[in-house]
């Protein structure tokens, strides 16, 4: 779905960009630094006012465009994301952490207290929430760019769309479409390899199937995802074990609502047996 790019006003001078980090690996911010050739062009067209990963020089808000990386895992961050929202005219969540809780959302399926006491010598020093949640669980987000990590072309597309007040071309359809556009041989049908492509949103360019392996869903659910049907076929026709089905749903986008619900459903089927 072409989502609404958000209310975009105009004012003279360069627009101000801020990049924020919450619980994440920094990979998505790196996608921005990785733009290399386009980075100078970016700096020419937007004032990079706050981007700690790149420079310790920080300009105060408000900001026209905020890119938010990372999920919310502490009460301090839950507070901070509200502050960021207040300072931002348009807020774009980037990456699996900010849009779906990230790999750290695996805690949502377990007991965090137990982890803490098992891992840390002084559990009392640890202050954390029981869940890892996307930015949208706390504040209004204007656009979500999915992926782990995000695709730098798509990121530039979102920024260009913002600068020139148009809807970004970020299709919400399946990876399968990209896979077929590339002329790949389907690894699911022709090799019997389980592939998450049919329920996963495009954007990566179908990298994994292009190297003859199954997609593992790092771009998160596509619109209108039918995980139940996919999981049935994996089990019944491709002979995939239940634990593998659950593992595939519980990757970087484990807390995306459709993947979350499907993995819980499959896991409880396991227990019933």
């Amino acid at each position: 779905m072409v989502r609404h790019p958000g209310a975009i006003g105009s004012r003279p001078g360069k627009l101000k960009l801020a990049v924020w980090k919450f619980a994440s690996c920094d990979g998505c911010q790196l996608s921005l630094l990785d733009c290399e050739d386009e980075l100078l062009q970016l700096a020419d067209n937007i004032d990079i006012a706050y981007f700690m990963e790149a420079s310790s020089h920080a300009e105060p808000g408000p900001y026209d465009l905020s890119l938010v990386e990372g999920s919310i895992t502490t009460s301090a961050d839950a507070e901070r994301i509200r502050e960021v929202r207040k300072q931002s005219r348009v807020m774009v969540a980037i990456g699996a952490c900010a849009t779906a809780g990230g790999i750290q959302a695996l805690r949502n399926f377990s007991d965090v207290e137990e982890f803490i006491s098992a891992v840390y010598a002084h559990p009392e020093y640890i202050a954390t929430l029981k869940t890892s949640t996307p930015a949208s669980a706390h504040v209004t987000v204007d656009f979500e760019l999915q992926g782990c990590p995000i695709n730098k072309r798509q990121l530039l597309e979102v920024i260009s769309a913002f600068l020139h007040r148009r809807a970004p071309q970020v299709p919400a359809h399946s990876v399968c479409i990209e896979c077929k556009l590339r002329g790949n041989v389907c690894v699911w049908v022709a090799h019997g390899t389980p592939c998450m492509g049919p329920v996963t949103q495009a954007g990566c360019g179908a990298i994994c199937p292009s190297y003859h392996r199954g997609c593992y869903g790092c771009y998160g659910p596509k619109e209108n995802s039918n995980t139940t049907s996919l999981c049935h076929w994996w089990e019944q026709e491709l002979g995939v074990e239940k634990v593998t089905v659950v593992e595939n749903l519980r990757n970087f986008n484990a807390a995306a609502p459709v993947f979350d619900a499907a993995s819980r459903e499959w896991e409880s089927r396991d227990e019933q047996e």
Partner: protein
Amino acid sequence: MQEFVLQAEHLEVLIQVVRSEGFQLMGPVVRNGAITYDEISTASDLPRGWGDEQEKGYYRVSRNDSGAYFAYAVGVGSWKQFLQLPRRKVWEAHKKDDAMDILEVLDEVPARAFLGVRSCDLHAIAIQDRVFAEGQYRNENYARRRQNILLIAVNCTTPAATCFCTVMNTGPKVTTPTDLTMTEVIDHKEHYFVIRSESQRGREILKQLPLSSLEERHSLAEEQALQAAVQKMQEGPRKFDSAGVKELLYRNYDSPVWDQVAERCLSCANCTMACPTCFCSTVEDTTDLTGEHAERWERWDSCFTGDFSYISGGSVRASTRSRYRQWMTHKLATWHDQFDTSGCVGCGRCITWCPVGIDLTEEVQRIQQLDKTL
């Protein structure tokens, strides 16, 4: 029409003659565990000794010991990929002072020959011709690509379990215009092609080949091979009565079958991408960071996506039920009203390449059965 026999060992001569006439030759090759279409420069590029096994959501290439070059049904993808490009830049625009330069992108169109086109795929190309080259909304890029294609058809004697061209009246025997039409025959120790020229260009090529005359036993063996193919499809599970399907679908907009299929359908769009007749595309307009340069790209689209029917306020076909219904109703019903033909040629690709094995012949038969009981 001229008809001859070309010994299998002389297939290489045919290939080299076609190439020396200036054509880039496209044909079947084995790649990544499947038969696909790609450039052919010698007979050894062809899938000799390879066949395919196709079922719902299942495809495997398999070795056979026949030594045949064309012992498969239809390949992954289709000739569509060379005529209606999956992605192409349509134009680009550049800001210049107060004006704008818009440059149409006219890409190089190579003169191409297609080798091994099946009858179903010839029908599919003819259907796309009607949409893109003969209709009111001509697509110049398609028309230019299509214009000079040299068509070398090969009659199908090895249908897959998913094929149902006999139901759609599109095969297995070639009946539509080509330049050359061949039938591969392996009879006892003999391995040859019955070859017919159907055009001036075809005759020019035949002149350069080491041919022998067609005898009755050749025609008989050819006829037998084609009959066996027909019989295989007649006896298969995908034979259904296609008469009145259009009316059937028009009176069954509310069939419960749509709900049942929507439970399984992933709305992944593999079926429409694999289909040789599906012609839908979208355009994507983008600007760069400076806003001084813009581009328009055309790419294949599908009625299985939400964006496809997105208008102000949302997607008209938000549910999978409505998307599948749109797809099948277009293929088998509204296409007749639009283009005077069916939109389906019975090649079976949508059945094979559907990850969850949804089979339109089964779904039609389900609707037919329910319709009868009402």
